[in-house]
């Protein structure tokens, strides 16, 4: 009988390690471990950890039902994707990937370089626009990002583009002035394209730890986050923080990126994601 108790201890520790290493966080992990505590002791005599992985998969699906991602293009109106996030997460790269993705679906877009601050940012997006085969709005370094977005809206209307993809500068959510700048960009969009379908995508790096939850809640508070794009899944990090973000903030994941080529992205699928997480 004591063997079952020992096994239970070993299994719970393995589960704890698996979850913590995925970056889902200690609080969500504690909730899951609690559910395992109430499982019948005799079940733990089954010396098969894979059996518990299956249980764990079920539990994750129950505890964190996938939020529905509503990001889609309505060709009958102007669609605007505002890409934001902290520094270095892969926003500019994703802007290029998204432009290519939608182009292959028949939606031609205009790429807007609203990061007029960081060295080489405009040139970087310009290069990607050529790779994606989409038009690029010219902007001057140091110019006001909100004015650049305003120009983008006018230009999209003039050129009859149904999709505007706006890249913004990386910013840590702890800088209130930078968060205000982003909120201003959103106001400019709502004022000048009130009829547009707006998607505010928060780009999160899969290597991000618990800070990801603060990023999501702060961006949500400042201007709203419609969905998350999770990048760099081609590395060894699992990106489990997005499960806790869904659970705590109900923000869906729309896309994932897994490489540096313009085609290295696809729509998020929670089943596949959890499967890989527990591998």
């Amino acid at each position, binding site marked *: 009988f004591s063997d079952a108790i020992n096994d239970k201890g070993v299994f719970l520790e393995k589960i704890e390690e698996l979850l913590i290493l995925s970056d889902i966080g200690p609080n969500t992990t504690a909730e899951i471990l609690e559910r395992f505590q109430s499982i019948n002791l005799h079940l733990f005599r089954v010396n098969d950890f894979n059996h518990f992985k299956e249980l764990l998969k079920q539990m994750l699906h129950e505890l964190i039902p996938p939020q529905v991602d509503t990001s889609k293009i309505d060709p009958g109106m102007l669609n605007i994707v505002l890409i934001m996030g902290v*520094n270095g997460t892969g926003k500019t790269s994703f802007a290029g990937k998204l432009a290519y993705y939608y182009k292959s679906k028949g939606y031609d877009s205009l790429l807007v370089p609203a990061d007029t601050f960081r060295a080489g940012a405009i040139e*970087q997006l310009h290069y990607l626009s050529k790779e994606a085969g989409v038009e690029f709005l010219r902007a001057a370094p140091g110019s006001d990002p909100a004015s650049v977005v305003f120009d983008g809206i006018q230009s999209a209307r003039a050129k009859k583009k149904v999709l505007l993809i706006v890249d913004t500068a990386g910013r840590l959510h702890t800088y209130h002035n930078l968060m205000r700048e982003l909120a201003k960009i959103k106001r400019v969009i709502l004022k000048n394209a009130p009829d547009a379908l707006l998607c505010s995508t928060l780009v999160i790096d899969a290597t991000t730890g618990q800070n990801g939850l603060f990023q999501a809640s702060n961006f949500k508070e400042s201007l709203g986050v419609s969905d998350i794009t999770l990048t760099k899944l081609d590395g060894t990090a699992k990106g489990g923080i997005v499960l806790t973000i869904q659970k705590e903030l109900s923000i869906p994941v729309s896309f994932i990126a897994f490489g540096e080529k313009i085609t290295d992205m696809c729509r998020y699928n929670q089943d596949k994601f959890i499967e890989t997480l527990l591998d």
Partner: protein
Amino acid sequence: RLSEKLKQILNKVREKGKISENDLKQSLKEIKLALLEADVHYKVVKDFISKLEKLANQESLSKTLTPGQQIIKMTHTVLTEILGEKQSKIRFNEEGPTNILLIGLQGSGKTTTAAKLALQIKKMGYIPALIAADKIRPAAIEQLQIMGEKAGADVFAGGVNQPVLNTIHEAQQWAKEHKRDVLIIDTAGRLHIDSELIQELKDIKNAIPIHETLLVLDALMGQDALRMADDFNKKIGVDGFILTKLDGDARGGVSLSIRSMTGKPIKFTGVGEKIIDLEPFYPDRMSSRILG
């Protein structure tokens, strides 16, 4: 905040004057949670807690500190011990130019840090130059050139189509002719599991003597930091770390993980996007930050 939580638990201990088994257990539970929330690696947390437990059990209660203060003091001690007790600086080459290689994952802050480092090294009295060895990322060379200008340091670029090793060799020659005594090489972001790009780093280290290989990593990283740092260190050797984006609210537990795994020191921290935003690493400040 950990210190608040510990105060709460141990306030009831104050009346009894000693730590009961249960109080210690509860305190360790709070410390474990704080460390995991701070992104310290799971294995490092487990070792840390067992070390702390041993220490708490063998140490007799101090007459001057409350049990709560004593546990916090012990936690700080173990943390600072792991992080390294004093500042660790760049080891300059005594017999000629110093070559510094910056490596790291995509987007960790290498290019920005390279320029910041050039400014700091200038202030130390050297004449550094930057080498743009990232031929992969669009406009990487332009980015380094603009940042180099802010640092007041020349950037040697070579064409974007020129092989990295050719650029490195030409840069070395150019540096000799122009009496640059420190070369800072900015490389393309790469995964620790990318064998081709890992080989590129090995080739660079075989081509010219590298006196400092510094791994630039993001303070916002989670559990993956330990494996990543370990991989880079095992595969190509790392002399130290630069932790970036510490101007945010990330607790920076990665610092504990990478230090305990590789034994290599954190030399600098990035605290913003401006050229002056690079500071030496202070272990005791980091330990307070991790505990929250």
